[in-house]
């Protein structure tokens, strides 16, 4: 498990242990990765994050068009694995979780423990940092630092 911010690690570790999820990705609503477990390649993480954020953006827009409240979660259930994609609010704004699970657990358990993860993250989140300007010279260094944190290299 890799996380960009240390306070995410404990709630995510608990979730992984309890839910028996194979792969988990936490990201902001714009698809910026916060933490991941189960991915081995950076490209896969970035693709999954972009696709997951896109799916949730589409469901939010679909709900808006239908005049209903935003849809909180999307489930793709395959024959061997399922994908649970859900949005939740944190003091840092709306985050998304993408969970891939197999037959060793169930959608009900994933939903149950994901709700607890969302609550734990909301409680553990430090107060928001003041926004700072991202300078061009810092961007590459920060990107490399994030990739190192997520993949250990």
């Amino acid at each position, binding site marked *: 498990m890799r996380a960009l911010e240390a306070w995410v690690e404990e709630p995510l570790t608990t979730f992984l242990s309890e839910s028996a999820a194979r792969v988990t990705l936490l990201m902001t609503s714009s698809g910026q990765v916060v933490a991941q477990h189960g991915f081995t390649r950076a490209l896969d993480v970035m693709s999954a994050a972009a696709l997951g954020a896109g799916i949730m953006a589409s469901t939010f827009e679909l709900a808006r068009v239908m005049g209903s409240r935003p849809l909180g979660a999307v489930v793709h259930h395959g024959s061997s694995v399922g994908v649970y994609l859900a949005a939740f609010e944190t003091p840092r704004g709306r985050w998304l979780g993408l969970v891939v699970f197999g037959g060793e657990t169930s959608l009900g358990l994933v939903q*149950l423990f994901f709700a607890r993860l969302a609550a734990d993250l909301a409680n553990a989140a430090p107060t928001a940092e003041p926004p700072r300007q991202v300078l061009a010279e810092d961007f590459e260094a920060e990107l490399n630092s994030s990739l190192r944190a997520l993949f250990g290299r």
Partner: protein
Amino acid sequence: MIADVLAGLTRIPGVRGVLIVSRDDGLVVADALMEGVDGAAIAALAASLAGRMRSVTMALGQPEPVMMHVAGAGGSLLAAPGRHGLLIVAVAAPDVNAGELRLGLLDAAGRAA
């Protein structure tokens, strides 16, 4: 029919709630619960427990259990696999008539859906 199953079991004194659960997903199909009983959590955990019990008995070369009864200081949880991949789950107080509830659950498991 599902409403009859739920009504029949909740009439037993000491029963705090009854759920019909999808065994594979651990999701609630139908329920009748007293206030404060977390149906989604019970469904997910009971289905998981039933699945593990099934795995254990299969590993032992035995048929699938027809009833699971977990008794605690604060109450009991009983579950019986029904047809069509369903699980009938009851949450009961410690003083429930367990025999009557077991009979009711077995009957419901045969009838449900």
